[in-house]
């Protein structure tokens, strides 16, 4: 945390504003009661004056300076809010952890009760407590503090249950570490940050609710006053002296805002999504490129460079070509830039990256410009890695698989459906008409990936870009999917760019193999060269050596025992 405070990206404008506001408010809370109590509480004959140089916000019916009252009230308000927030947070954490530490039955019952309590509006809960206790400062703090406990306890219990199912807690438990020790060493440190962020929210909420209690007359009682009490006083004079409401209103809003900003900034700091920076790629004007007569390649990339704007280069000027009907593999380990390259060629590079090249074309389409979307959709199909998340869970398969046919080929529903049923049949999916009525989660992973392949061939594309299409699949399913790619290539002559980390997979399917390492192509091989292990670059050799291969020699003397 300390090192965080010194880091530059921690101090965003929101954080600075929030922290400065809060510091100012704390300063006012310390100083105002020492210097302004006289002006705030002394009865004078100057009753109900409007704003003037002497009384910036005017005076109330008893001739007391309204600005001074609002500033002096800061101390009581902040102290009460901090007290109530502390009650909610500390008791919430203790109860939440206790629930997590207790047995399964106790835990389930306790969570059910908390769930019910959380649904209950906490202000009304506070009203119940206020109804029982005599109105006053301490009962307001207790009421709001207690009303906030269920929410925080539930958060703590939820966080605890998610942290406790993490593997480092599971393994610690297996080592025989006691539950209390696990809570202290593993859970609290890893829960501290979200709990801190939420404490800011609790503080803001307590402020609003304590002021609300005072406002409706159930909190601070005269002659004491906090922001809510001041606002309540102003309600009676709303028509004659509306400015009286300004002081406490502004103070409540500023206090709430300061804490909200700090909480927001902390949350944003913890969320990597907030740190992204957008880079507006400069697109070339000409959407098509005239291909020279001798150039028969379908895809040509020359000196392709992909970089984080203002940061490192991830793909360092690679050149490649894919001929019509050729199957080209890009092989490498994570971080080699193979997927980035493929997505740039497919015209879908990650939005925060800069893509440059001397030439990048697919057919006549200039991929450095914004080519016609329909043409892109028809000519280039993409098959992604993880079939579990590539389909929209809320739409039926049929409506998703026919998207391109209906949107870009202008086919009607019936025709599109017929086309996709044919394609599904060709990739060996049983009962294709029935599958179209199902949701993605009702299909197995292998089936979803074959459906994705069916959708990718149905437009008869010139190029299929497949990004690790079999990595998430079981080995038998992988073999089946690879067979489909091979069949499509044989029957339709579609060119493919196939991304993989597995040389053995690539060897079976591809004509040309490009080995990538750290953003560069280090070796170009034909499948024959690869099969003969005729490789030269040390990295390719190391990669080949690292891949575990099955050794299946002659049958040994004793056989395995098969259990029926």
């Amino acid at each position, binding site marked *: 945390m300390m090192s965080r405070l010194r880091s530059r990206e921690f101090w965003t404008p929101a954080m600075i504003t929030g922290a400065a506001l809060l510091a100012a408010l704390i300063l006012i809370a310390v100083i105002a009661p020492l210097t302004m109590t006289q002006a705030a509480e002394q009865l004078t004959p100057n009753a109900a004056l409007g704003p003037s140089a002497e009384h910036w916000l005017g005076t109330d019916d008893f001739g007391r300076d309204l600005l001074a009252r609002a500033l002096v009230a800061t101390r009581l308000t902040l102290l009460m809010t901090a007290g109530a927030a502390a009650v909610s947070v500390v008791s919430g954490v203790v109860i939440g952890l206790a629930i997590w530490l207790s047995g399964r039955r106790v835990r389930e019952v306790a969570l059910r009760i908390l769930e019910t309590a959380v649904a209950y509006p906490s202000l009304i809960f506070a009203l119940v407590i206020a109804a029982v206790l005599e109105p006053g400062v301490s009962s307001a703090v207790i009421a709001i503090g207690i009303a906030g406990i269920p929410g925080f306890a539930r958060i703590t219990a939820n966080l605890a249950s998610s942290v406790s199912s*993490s*593997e*480092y*807690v*599971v*393994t*610690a438990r*297996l*080592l*025989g*570490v006691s539950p209390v*020790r696990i809570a202290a*060493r*593993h859970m609290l*440190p*890893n829960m501290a940050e979200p709990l801190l962020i939420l404490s800011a929210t609790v503080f803001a909420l307590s402020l609003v609710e304590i002021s609300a209690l005072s406002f409706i007359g159930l909190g601070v009682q005269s002659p004491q006053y906090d922001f809510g009490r001041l606002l309540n006083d102003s309600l009676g004079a709303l028509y004659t002296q509306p400015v009286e409401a300004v002081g406490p209103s502004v103070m409540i809003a500023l206090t709430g805002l300061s804490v909200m900003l700090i909480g927001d900034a902390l949350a944003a700091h913890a969320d990597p999504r907030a740190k992204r920076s957008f880079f507006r790629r400069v697109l070339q004007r000409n959407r098509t490129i005239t291909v020279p007569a001798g150039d028969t390649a379908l895809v040509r990339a020359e000196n392709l460079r992909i970089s984080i704007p203002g940061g490192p280069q991830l793909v360092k000027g690679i050149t490649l070509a894919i001929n019509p009907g050729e199957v080209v593999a890009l092989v490498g*380990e*994570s971080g080699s830039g193979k997927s980035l390259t493929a997505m740039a060629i497919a015209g879908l590079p990650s939005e925060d990256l800069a893509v440059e090249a001397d030439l990048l074309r697919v057919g006549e389409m200039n991929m450095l410009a914004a080519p016609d979307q329909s043409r892109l959709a028809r000519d280039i199909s993409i098959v992604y890695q993880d079939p579990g998340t590539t389909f929209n869970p809320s739409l039926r398969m049929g409506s998703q698989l026919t998207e391109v046919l209906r949107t870009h080929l202008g086919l009607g529903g019936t025709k599109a459906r017929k086309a996709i049923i044919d394609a599904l049949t060709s990739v060996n999916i049983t009962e294709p008409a029935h599958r179209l009525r199902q949701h993605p989660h009702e299909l197995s*992973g292998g089936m979803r990936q074959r459906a994705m392949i069916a959708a990718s061939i149905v437009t008869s594309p010139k190029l299929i870009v497949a990004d690790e299409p079999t990595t998430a699949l*079981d*080995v*038998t*399913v*992988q*073999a089946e999917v*690879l*067979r489909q790619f*091979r069949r499509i290539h044989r029957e339709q002559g579609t060119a493919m760019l196939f991304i993989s*980390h*597995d040389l*053995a*997979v690539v*060897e*079976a*399917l591809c004509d040309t193999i490009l080995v990538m390492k750290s953003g560069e192509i280090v070796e170009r091989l034909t499948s024959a060269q690869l099969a003969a292990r005729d490789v030269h670059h040390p990295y390719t050799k*190391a*990669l*080949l*050596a*690292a*891949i*575990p*291969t*099955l*050794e*299946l*020699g*002659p*049958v*040994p*003397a*004793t*056989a*395995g*025992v*098969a*259990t029926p």
Partner: protein
Amino acid sequence: MNANAQTPPAALDPQPGGPGRRAAHTAAPAAGPADPAAAPAAGPAALQAASVSNLNVRFGAAHVLKDVTMAVPAGTVVGLVGESGSGKSTLGKTLVGINKPSSGEVLIAGEDFTKMRGRRRQQMRREVQYIPQDPYSSLSPRRTTGQTLAEALDPHGANPVEHRKAIAAALERVKLDPSAAEKYPHQFSGGQRQRIAIARALMLEPKLVIADEITSALDVSVQADIIRLLQGMRSTVDSAMLFISHNLAVVQQVCDEVVVMFQGRIVEQGPIESVYRDPQHDYTKKLLSSVPGSPGFSLD
């Protein structure tokens, strides 16, 4: 994983090259399978690091493990292969005590710890340790390697100097520098983290270590490092290991025996060379012929 295992361990290959390893394998295949002790779950209980018999595990309506009977002989590495949903991970977690058996027996060093209570159960649980798949979530981000490893040690006994020695020894065993003890997980690569996870599992010198897909999340070159490490450790570590993996080639390089699971049942088990070279069950045959590059593999 000691030297008197039924099948001779694959020799630690000094040169990380395919041809070298190939030679080591083809030289070794014969000795083990003839040993009668290799017949699964047949030897006396004392020779088994762990064994389960007629084990059933149900989650609600789902019957995940069906009448599973198998054993991990002391000092051996047994591979557990199968596809996702075959129940191999469930079996691993049942052996560690994370999942509860619905029926059947789970013996660790001849004793059924699922039926034990309190301190004795805690003691027994420490005899089985678990290495999870993802090295990024298996180490607490806010604790140094030293603190993580020290958790296995008795917090009240032993003095700090002995603790430090034990931790240094554990790091040494997985070929990490003793200075690693002072560092936090984010300062290590995936492969180094997996080494730390292995060191942690071996801290207590348990009877059995469950390695659940420990190389699946790693790049191939890092995976090769971990395989070499496991092969190299066999002479110095006494614990037996259940090596769960979907990668049949990796299993062949690390394990002495293999158990094949399919839809919650064990369909085949035996010494690795015999099962791989002469699979009896149709599913095993299909599995082996699906591995790219294997003799039966064909895309046509």
